[in-house]
């Protein structure tokens, strides 16, 4: 009986270990990826890591090519949307017109709004413009103070030279007016 109890306890001790490993999430023992298993799986894992690195590097080069081919620096214009605090405005959509032509009509999902709140900046439009004078009009819709439907537009004229033009549409809180404020910032 004693022998049997010992055997059971040994298996239960293993059970405790397995159960703790569950809580770890990774299921690993105290020291993860011990040398023996790493050596066994190493070659495949190394080859997979190398292939992933090559895919990521290829993706980068393809995206660089795409940008240079479709949106060359001399004509490139990018429009970004950002939020600074943005507590007074619950963004739902943004509509962008460039030279009176609708180029973007974007509806936001909750994760996107959350990402903006956390400091993300969305590139909402990427396109081409000839050098010269242009006009951008942006309309923001959403809920303003006191849950009221809110729609605000902002317009700015700008010169496009031969460098890329980056335009940032910033949603800010105006603490004095207790209202959202929409600011256009020209980067280049």
């Amino acid at each position: 009986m004693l022998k049997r109890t010992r055997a059971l306890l040994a298996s239960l001790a293993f059970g405790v270990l397995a159960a703790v490993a569950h809580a770890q999430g990774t299921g690993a023992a105290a020291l993860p990826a011990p040398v023996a298993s790493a050596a066994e799986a190493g070659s495949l894992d190394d080859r997979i890591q190398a292939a992933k690195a090559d895919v990521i590097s290829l993706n980068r080069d393809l995206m660089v090519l795409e940008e240079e081919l479709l949106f060359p620096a001399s004509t490139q214009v990018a429009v970004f949307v950002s939020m600074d605090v943005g507590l007074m405005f619950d963004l739902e959509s943004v509509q962008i017109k460039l030279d009176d032509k609708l180029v973007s009509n974007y509806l936001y999902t909750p994760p996107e709004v959350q990402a903006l709140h956390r400091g993300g900046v969305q590139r909402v439009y990427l396109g081409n413009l000839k050098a010269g004078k242009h006009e951008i009009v942006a309309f923001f819709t959403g809920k303003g103070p006191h849950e009221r439907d809110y729609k605000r537009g902002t317009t700015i004229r700008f010169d496009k030279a031969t460098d890329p033009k980056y335009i940032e549409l910033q949603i800010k809180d105006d603490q004095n007016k207790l209202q959202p404020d929409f600011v256009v910032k020209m980067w280049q």
Partner: protein
Amino acid sequence: MRSSASALTALALATSLALAAPARALAADAKPPADPPKHPVVDPHYGDVLFEFFQNHYFPALTKLEVSQHFERMPHHADEAEVLRGGLLLSYGMHQQAGEVFEQLIARGAAPSVRDRAWYFLAKVRWQRGLAGPALDALGHVEHPLPGQLEEDRKLLQANVLMATGDNAGAAALLTPMVASKGAPLYARYNLGVAQVRAGDTARGAKALDEIGRMGMPNEEQRALRDKANVALGFAALRDGQPQQARAFLERVRLDGLESNQALLGFGWAADAMKNPKLALVPWVELAGRDPTDSAVLEAQLAVPYAYAELGASGQALDRYNVAIANFEHENSNLDATIAAIRQGKLLEGLMARNPGEQIGWFQTFKDIPLVPHARHLTPVLAGNEFQEGFKNYRDLMFMSHNLADWRDQLGIFGDMLATRRQGFAERLPAVSTKAGAMDINALQQRSDANAAALREAQSAQDGAAFADAKERDLRARLERAQAALDRVRDDPSVADARERLRRVKGALAWQLAHEYATREPGARAQQADTEAALAEARAHGEALARAQADEPARFEAFARRIADLDTRLQALVPRVAALSQAQAQALDDLAIASLTEQKARLAGYTAQAKIAVAQLYDRATESGGDGEPAKEGDHAAKP
């Protein structure tokens, strides 16, 4: 006696917990590093990367980040972007590349805050590679508290590494102030208990675990940890020969939690140790009816007849042993069916159907997988680190395979687009060149120069007549003709009146032109400037056209070469990724089958034990002079 018992308890608890690994946050390694420090985003392209990152779109975040690094569009966030890149690479299981990123950041002397984070992530990389010593060394280089949640993660990582390297006292010293603070994670408290016990401070460690074992917990994760603490304490007491105490600990474990099977088994053995097999039957019978994929349940199926035999109910014991043998054989055939399904590739197909998103979660609680019969047998192997890492690799490779297929289509479109542009350029060039050639810019320039000289002369003489319009010039010409006619009849007194009138008209015109000078001169100057600007623009266009004639074909050629090069790389990667996916799939299947084969071996062992016990029961019945059938009631059977 008391101190001896206490020492024994300490020893038992230490032994029981020696195998227990420290707990850590469930998703600690499943996610990329915590958010970058919150500060104003200066470069919008860095913000764009964060926008993807904050939505857990790690692949677009990584590629966008590298593209913007290529174009040098994030000069104000260069180091932050590198830290983020390292973290993203780490989340893709690319330990080597992530390690290189962090090492380079450190080597190039990044700002202290960046360097500290780089050391932390480097430690994490090393820890995940099983390199505890180097991980500890990297953690030693962190000089300042890390921002936000990262600091707590660092301490927990350091405690885990210290425990892995045997410095349990160091881990306990690190965790003690952490646990004292409000809102400290429960697993930190659990780890502290484990570290204290391992370090020999059994009293405090057991107390810490006992506190966890008594706490009311708000969520499943914490309740599971409480169960774990109670099971560890229960088995320590059982091993220490304190079955009543063991039952007290094990009684706290929930009946429906992950630990419940272990607890029920131990609860029964504690009763058995109290010489009360009847009491042991209660938990064991409950356990024996549970999912037989758990080894504790299989043990219970043997323990129940053992208890009946202990109670002298040999007949019932025999029946139960026979039921257990039948169950084991049934389970064995179930395992064969599961193995067969895995060999047909159903496991990964089913798991992929369960995890359709880009990110994966840990699936330790899977009860069923589409297409795989009796998938519960796979729970232990699916929860294992090796399988989870391998499956993540497999999913990443599948994602990348789709990504490459998309780019293959795109690249074809780029090629067509380039060909169209090239053709359009070749078609338009002759017409544009002809048009440009027809414009004699030099002649126009000469005319402009002459006008400029005339303007300067008129300005210097303040000559209003120089700015006369066509009507005025016509009038001046008529007046000159009239003057000439009058001059021819100079002696004729009858034209004196006309001469006077002519003089007045000329005077009026001269006055008018002089008067208009002030307004006409700037206009003429502006027109001349416009002419010169237009001429400069025309000349620039001409030069651009000449340049384009020379450069554009070379540019098209360069693009075509790049497309071809990228296509070559892409074509080489497609079969490579496919082959690696297949190899990874095979490795995962092998892993699962190995686990199931182990379970089959265990079942064979249980079956053999049960058969021996049955034989012993028959032998004893025969020895006692019966008819060869074990007595049904009241007869004492031998222990199996």
